[in-house]
Structures are given as structure tokens and as C-alpha cells.
């Protein structure tokens, strides 16, 4: 009895020892000296880090957050690391998906731990995190950068996003606006043009020299969509849809919100009331009109596939790629590389997609749609500010940005670092990008003020939008349901 018990205990201990050693061994294997330093800094958040040494070594380690699997940072960070090796800066990446990054960065900022030196944020997160950041103007000036020149370098809309109260908080590394593709082979085909003229009495919109189309107004857009919706093999099912937008969840709601912004509406008013809720009956008609137009495209005109309520941007682009949609509506950055691949273009006569923006939806010229923008900011509690500023300056470096485009093989999914006309000139972005990016704005995607309840409000809209597009509810019902619900959310939150 004693012997078997002994064996049992001995084997238990052995396995535990082996596992512990393998853990430790692997941990050390995976870390280099730089990351061993990072371990130290991560553990001792209270004590001062021993990395800022004024004597010979002068090396610093900074924690930079990175979106997992995002090609832009996958290309950018190594390039910056290479450039900074000589300056003794070591970059340690904190990788996470959107949700994780939001949670951990917000937690870190709120508790002031300084866990992150450079924080990454997208447009929805930016206003929430500004409070944890330090403005960059002084640092930029100290580095010899002229603030006005810098602002002139980017589109005014981009500059709006990266500044708060006149101070620059973010270095933008990505800007994305919603943008549509259109089949060049169909639009430039003389037979199609003649048929369209015969049926509708005016000319089919044609692309300009950079491949961008503009529509005059919503009616023209609906006509074109209807024109191109066809059953090509006579089996009773539509094979070519005139227009393919995303309708599911978050992506569908982005389409809606962009169009909403261009109507001059947004989610909230200055006090926080729902802008089409019980407090603002005067706006409901405008909202209903927009929603009716969106619903008619699917239900009445049938120029949009009913599958739209189940599709996100990737699938919408798949529809376009496989020749099932004459026009698709996605983001400018994401699919340009994919859609200009030779094998893919074969399906449409080897033509590059034309592009269009929805600026025709603007009821007033000064109304703006919204963009997605991503940037890096300097954490207020960072313990390595100097090194982080070096990092941020490299992010700004024009030559480095252009270089990353070619090393990482951009454009490809979600990859676009430079934010200027250089992109279009070098065929790295569709022509319609310029129209799109210059007619977007609003720091906060759906309202001028960054209400914390915005994500809850958008969550209310999403299922109702899906129901609207599939015809289960009318635009009036949508306005009533969402308006009331959003009003209630703001009321519960104690804003009035």
C-alpha cells in the first residue's frame, strides 16, 4: 500500500515539476532581453521603471497597442522598430481585437497605470480616450514640425478628427470612408449607355479621369440600380443586383448612419434627446423619408438582394467580385487591392472598378458623412514619453509611410497609411476616395457630442434596421420604436 501511494505522489510531483519548468522555459524562450525588461515593467506598475537611464545605454521600452491581425500595424510597427533601433527604443506590442483593446486601454487609462505608452484608437474610441492623453503640439514643435504645414498635409476632415480644442491629440495612420464600387465594363459599355438613355431619358453617369462617378441625386441612383438589376439566365431569380449594401448589424448601421448624417440628422441633440424621438417630432419626417428610400430599394424596386440583412462588408464585396452586383457599397480602403487583382477582374472584363461616394445624399452641402479613422496618441501616464514621441514622429514620417505601403504589399485589406492624394495618384486607392474623404467629418460617428450611450443607441438601431430592410416593419414604426427606445436610454442615464 505504501509503495503505490508513494509512486502516485512521486509521479504527481514529477509532472508538476516538469510542467512548471516547461512553462518557465517556454516563457524565457519566447522572450528576448527586451521583452524580459517588459515583464519587469508590466509587473511593477507602481514603481518607476528603470528604463530611462541617462547614462550610456539610454534604451527605453514602450508599450504600444496594436489591433491583432491588422495589416497596417503589422507593417508599420516593424518598420518603425527598425528605424528606432539606433535610437535605443524597443517597442513591445500589446495585441488585441477591438473589444479587448477598448476594454484594456480604458481600464488602464481610468486607473492611471501607464500600462500603455502609445494608445491606439478608432473614431468611436477617440473621444472617450482623449481624457487619458497628452496633447502633442509642444512635442511636435520641439521636433521642428510646423503645425500649420502638418495640418495642410492632411485633408481638412482628417485634421478635424485628430484635434480636440485646437490641440493635436492623435497621429492618424488610417482613414476610411464609405465608398461604392461600380462595374466599369457595364457603365462604359455603349450598348448599356444607349439602353439607359432610351429607358430613362438621360445619360448614364460616366467616370472621370480618376475613375470616379458622381450621381446627381437619389432618384438617379435608384434608376441606375434598377436598370442594372437583371435575371441573366431566365431562371426567375435575379442574378445581377443593381446595388449591394451591407445590412447586418454593425455594418448595416454604419451605412444608415452615414446617410443619416448627410440628411443633417444625427442620433442626439445637444441635450441628449433622440433627434427623431418624442422630443423632436419635426425631424421624424426626414428620417422616415430616408428610411423609406432605403427600404424601397430592397422591397419595392427589388434592386437590392434580400440577402443584404445577412451580409457584412466582406460578403457585399464578394457579391461584387463574383459578378452578382453592379454596384456595391463598402469602405474605400478594404477591398481595392482585392478588386484590382487580375484573376478577380477577369470576371468583369478585366476592368478596374469605378468608384462613387454618397455625397449625392447630402441635403445641404455642408452636411457630412462620417469616416473611420485610426490613430496613435500619447498616454498621459506614460513613463517613457520621450521614447513614445519618437515613435509617434516616425508614424508621421512621410517617407516611412510610403515605404510601408510597398513593403507590406498595400493596398490590401484594410491597409492604407498615407492619407493624401498620393494614394490615388499611385493607384493605391480608388478615385472616388477623394470625393468620399472630403465630404465626411463628425468626430463622433453619429453625433457631434461623444455621448457614452452612443453604442447602446446604435445597438437599438441595428436589429430594427434589419427588420426594416427585410420588410417586417415600416419606416414609421422604425422611427417610433428606436426614437422611444433611445430617448428612454438617455433618460435612464440621467441626462434629463
Amino acid at each position, binding site marked *: 500500500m505504501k509503495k503505490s501511494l508513494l509512486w502516485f505522489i512521486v509521479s504527481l510531483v514529477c509532472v508538476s515539476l516538469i510542467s512548471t519548468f516547461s512553462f518557465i522555459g517556454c*516563457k524565457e524562450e*519566447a522572450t528576448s532581453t527586451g521583452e524580459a525588461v517588459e515583464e519587469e515593467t508590466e509587473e511593477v506598475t507602481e514603481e518607476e521603471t528603470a528604463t530611462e537611464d541617462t547614462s550610456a545605454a539610454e534604451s527605453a521600452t514602450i508599450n504600444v497597442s496594436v489591433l491583432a491581425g491588422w*495589416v497596417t500595424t*503589422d507593417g508599420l510597427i516593424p518598420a518603425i522598430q527598425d528605424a528606432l533601433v539606433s535610437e535605443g527604443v524597443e517597442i513591445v506590442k500589446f495585441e488585441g481585437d*477591438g473589444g479587448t483593446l477598448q476594454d484594456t486601454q480604458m481600464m488602464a487609462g481610468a486607473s492611471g497605470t501607464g500600462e500603455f505608452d502609445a494608445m491606439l484608437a478608432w473614431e468611436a474610441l477617440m473621444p472617450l480616450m482623449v481624457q487619458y492623453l497628452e496633447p502633442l503640439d509642444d512635442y511636435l514643435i520641439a521636433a521642428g514640425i510646423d503645425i500649420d504645414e502638418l495640418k495642410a498635409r492632411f485633408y481638412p476632415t482628417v485634421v478635424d478628427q485628430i484635434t480636440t480644442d485646437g490641440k493635436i491629440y492623435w497621429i492618424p495612420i488610417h482613414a476610411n470612408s464609405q465608398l461604392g464600387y461600380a462595374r466599369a465594363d457595364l457603365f462604359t459599355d455603349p450598348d448599356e449607355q444607349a439602353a439607359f438613355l432610351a429607358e430613362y431619358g438621360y445619360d448614364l453617369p460616366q467616370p472621370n479621369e480618376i475613375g470616379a462617378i458622381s450621381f446627381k441625386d437619389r432618384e438617379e441612383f435608384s434608376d441606375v440600380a434598377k436598370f442594372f438589376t437583371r435575371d441573366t439566365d431566365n431562371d426567375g431569380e435575379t442574378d445581377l443586383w443593381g446595388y449591394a449594401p451591407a445590412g447586418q448589424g454593425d455594418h448595416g448601421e454604419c451605412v444608415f448612419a452615414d446617410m443619416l448624417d448627410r440628411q443633417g440628422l444625427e442620433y442626439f441633440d445637444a441635450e441628449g434627446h433622440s433627434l427623431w424621438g418624442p422630443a423632436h417630432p419635426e425631424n421624424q419626417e426626414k428620417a422616415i423619408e430616408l428610411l423609406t428610400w432605403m427600404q424601397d430599394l430592397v422591397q419595392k424596386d427589388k434592386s437590392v438582394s434580400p440577402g443584404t440583412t445577412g451580409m*457584412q462588408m466582406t460578403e457585399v464585396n464578394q457579391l461584387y467580385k463574383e459578378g452578382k452586383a453592379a454596384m456595391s457599397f463598402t469602405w474605400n480602403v478594404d*477591398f481595392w487591392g482585392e478588386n484590382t487583382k487580375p*484573376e*478577380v477582374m477577369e470576371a468583369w472584363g478585366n476592368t478596374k472598378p469605378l468608384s462613387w461616394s454618397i455625397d449625392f445624399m447630402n441635403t445641404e452641402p455642408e452636411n457630412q458623412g462620417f469616416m473611420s479613422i485610426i490613430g496613435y496618441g500619447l498616454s498621459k501616464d506614460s513613463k517613457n514619453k520621450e521614447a513614445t514621441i519618437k515613435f509617434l514622429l516616425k508614424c508621421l514620417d512621410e517617407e516611412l509611410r510610403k515605404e510601408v505601403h510597398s513593403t507590406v504589399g498595400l493596398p490590401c485589406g484594410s491597409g492604407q497609411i498615407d492619407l493624401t492624394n498620393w494614394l490615388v495618384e499611385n493607384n493605391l486607392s480608388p478615385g472616388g476616395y477623394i470625393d468620399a474623404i472630403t465630404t465626411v467629418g463628425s468626430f463622433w460617428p453619429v453625433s457631434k457630442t461623444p455621448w457614452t450611450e452612443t453604442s447602446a443607441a446604435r445597438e437599438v438601431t441595428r436589429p430594427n434596421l434589419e427588420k426594416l430592410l427585410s420588410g417586417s416593419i415600416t419606416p414609421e414604426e422604425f422611427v417610433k420604436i428606436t426614437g422611444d427606445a433611445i430617448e428612454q436610454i438617455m433618460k435612464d442615464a440621467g441626462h434629463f
Partner: protein
Amino acid sequence: MDNESGLNMRKIFIWLSIIFILAWTLLPFYSLIIISLAKTGSISELWPKSVTFEYYKAVIFGSPDTRSIWVYMKNSVIVCSVSSIVVIMLSVPCSYALSRWKSKSSNAMYMSYFILRMLPPISLIIPRIILLQNLHLIDTFLGLALIYIPTQIPVGVWLMRGFFDSTPIEFEEYAYIEGATYFKTFFRIVLPVNTNGVAVTSVFVFIYCYIEYIFAALITRTNAITLPPYIASFASPWEIRFQLMLAAALISTIPMIVLYAFAQRFIVKGITVGAVKQ
């Protein structure tokens, strides 16, 4: 005559079943392979018009915009193997004891394991993260293992108790009469008969740990990233790089297949019950 036609019917039934099961199981995999090889990037092709291996190459060798899979696979295999071993070592004896100890309190303990299994992960996320932060075990293999082990022990206990329950108790009683000790009976008699149960349980525990995503995503940062977060990272909020995701998913089944091949021998049968009767 009857027997003959009975036999034929049975054979037809079996072969039809085999064909149907194969089709049901493999058609989606066929689609997976086609999608990950299609040069045109289509998802609706039944036969690829043109084939490209760039996605598999990117996953296997890495490319400027894709990280290669091997580091993550190594991490996953290490964490999951150690977790499974510990889980088996802790839960098999425990479930044997619960199975043989027939009393109200053992029933109660059994039920409580069952209840613990039912807690939705979302309620446990914050407490566990805080616990690991205090122990400075974020982004370590040990931290991940400390999450997986208590999650899987109830599964191990549950599964094994079923096997132990269906093992007749006579042999242990014979052994006691012959003067064997508790531990000896366990190791020499009960376990060998139930190797199929242990094999199945270990395969399951390994698989559960291998595909676990929530905690792997929340707790790992750079050093201990396992396969599920890696694969999920191919789906950004705006776009899904589906060819890479599918290729990586296919490749990541390899360790599990290896494990199953190894465990397959044991799943076939434990030492026959009859042979022990001596």
C-alpha cells in the same frame, strides 16, 4: 433464407449510412479547401477555376502582412497538453472515488461540479482577469492553464464517472478479498479496464482547451497567444480575410488529429472485462 436477406439488408443499410455520413461530414470541408485555394477569391465555386497556394504559404511561412502559424500552434499545444494532463490526473481519481462512494454527500459533490460547469463565461471574465493580474500571470502559459484546469475538471469528473459507473464492481471486490489495497485496485484493475474512457476524456479535454477563445483572447498579449485568437485575428471589424482564416483552421487541426491517432488505440477497448476474471 431469412438470415441471408437480413444480412444483405443490413449490409446495404451500413453502406448507405457510410456514404451519407461521409457526405454530410466532408462536403463542408471540400468547400473549405476550394475556398482557400481559389485564385479568384470566390466562395461559390464548386471546382476551382484557378488554384493558388498563396494563402497556405502565407499561413505556413508567414508573409509581410500575415504572421505564420507555428508559434501559436506551439503555444496552444503546450498549454493544452499540460492542462489536459493535470485535469486527467486530478479528475480521474476524483470521479472514481465519487463513483464508488455511494452516499448523499458524494451525490451532492457530483451535482455541485455539474452546477459549476454551468456558469456562463461572461460572469467569470472580470474576476478571473483580476485574479490573474494580482498573481502577475497575465500573458503566461501558467495563467491560461490556471483558467483551463478548473473549467475542465468538472467535465473530466462527469465523463469518467459514467465509465466507472458502468464498470461492474465485482472485480474490485474480488481484489479486496484477495488482499489488494485501494490504490492497487485502482491502478491495476479499474484503470486498465477503463482506458477507453480515459482516452476519450483526455481527447475531449484537450480539444476543449485547444479551441477555447474567450479567455485566450483576453489574457494573452504577446507571449502566450494561442491558436483561436490567432485565427480570429483574421477577422477584423471591417473585413474578413477568410482564405487565411480557413487555411489556418485546417492546419490547426493537425495536433488534434495526431492526438486522436494516438488515443485511438485506447478508445478501441480496454483490457477485456473477461480477461480479468481469473
